């Protein structure tokens, strides 16, 4: 019997699903996968679990997840959010895709070196998020 291929619903958005829950899902843009895989296994595990709880609609501590605040919004009005573990930061945004509450990771800082987020990364991130918004 031919094995049925599992289709990732986020594939048509150029993303891969990381976790799925009752109240949402979290995915990552394909271009970030290499950075994600380079992260320490503990960091990935913590962030994945944080995303799992986010998908369940739970209230996450600011040490794990932060939305808005100093990162602000993009020109297109998307609020930037970040999952954190150690010095690693996974920046992204929330969007309803196909009626499903979705968090998409759009950029990654594997080892934040200063207190403030890297301004170049944030600028790049904002452009990337708005481009995604225009395409989808």
């Amino acid at each position, binding site marked *: 019997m031919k094995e049925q291929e599992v289709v990732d619903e986020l594939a048509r958005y150029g993303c*891969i699903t990381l976790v799925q829950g009752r109240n949402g899902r979290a995915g990552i843009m394909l271009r970030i996968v*290499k950075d*994600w895989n380079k992260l320490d*296994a*503990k960091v990935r*595990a*913590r962030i994945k679990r944080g995303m799992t709880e986010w998908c369940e609609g739970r209230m996450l501590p600011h040490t*794990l997840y932060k939305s808005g605040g100093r990162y602000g919004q993009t020109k297109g009005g998307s609020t930037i959010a970040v999952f954190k573990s150690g010095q690693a930061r996974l920046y992204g945004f929330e969007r309803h895709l196909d009626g499903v509450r979705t968090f998409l990771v759009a950029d990654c800082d594997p080892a934040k070196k200063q207190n403030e987020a890297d301004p170049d990364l944030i600028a790049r991130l904002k452009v990337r998020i708005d481009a995604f918004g225009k395409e989808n």
Partner: protein
Amino acid sequence: MSSHEELVEFAGADLEIEATEGFMVDVQVYLNELMERKGVTRAELARRMGVSRARVSKMFSDDYNLTVRQLARAAYHLGEFPRVESDTTRELRAERDAVHRDTALRASPNVVSLWRDVSPANPADVSCTGDDERIQGIVRLARRSGTR
């Protein structure tokens, strides 16, 4: 290797790390939800526990190895008597509940026939997939026959 294959490769990575770090995150989310729900700040929790605010903040850091005792104390000072739950404890509880239910049914023979009439094997007027639907089916049968 495609991005998807790379990610799938990661999925098979160290599950022990996922279980351990995942649980640590779960504990932090649990405490955070309790504090939000009860309107207790970190400073207030520190005061209640008789520890420094820095110690409470550490509970939410990545590397801090919170002891079971510290977790229980924090939960207690947030008004909870925490219990450990897992897939196995839930399974065991369901098994115990089933035994109690069967014992109760045996003690009430008039209920047994109704319970049998409305079952997944003999669904009467409803398609039953679980106990809740069976109970609803029994209520419907009872109403139809004029009993309450």
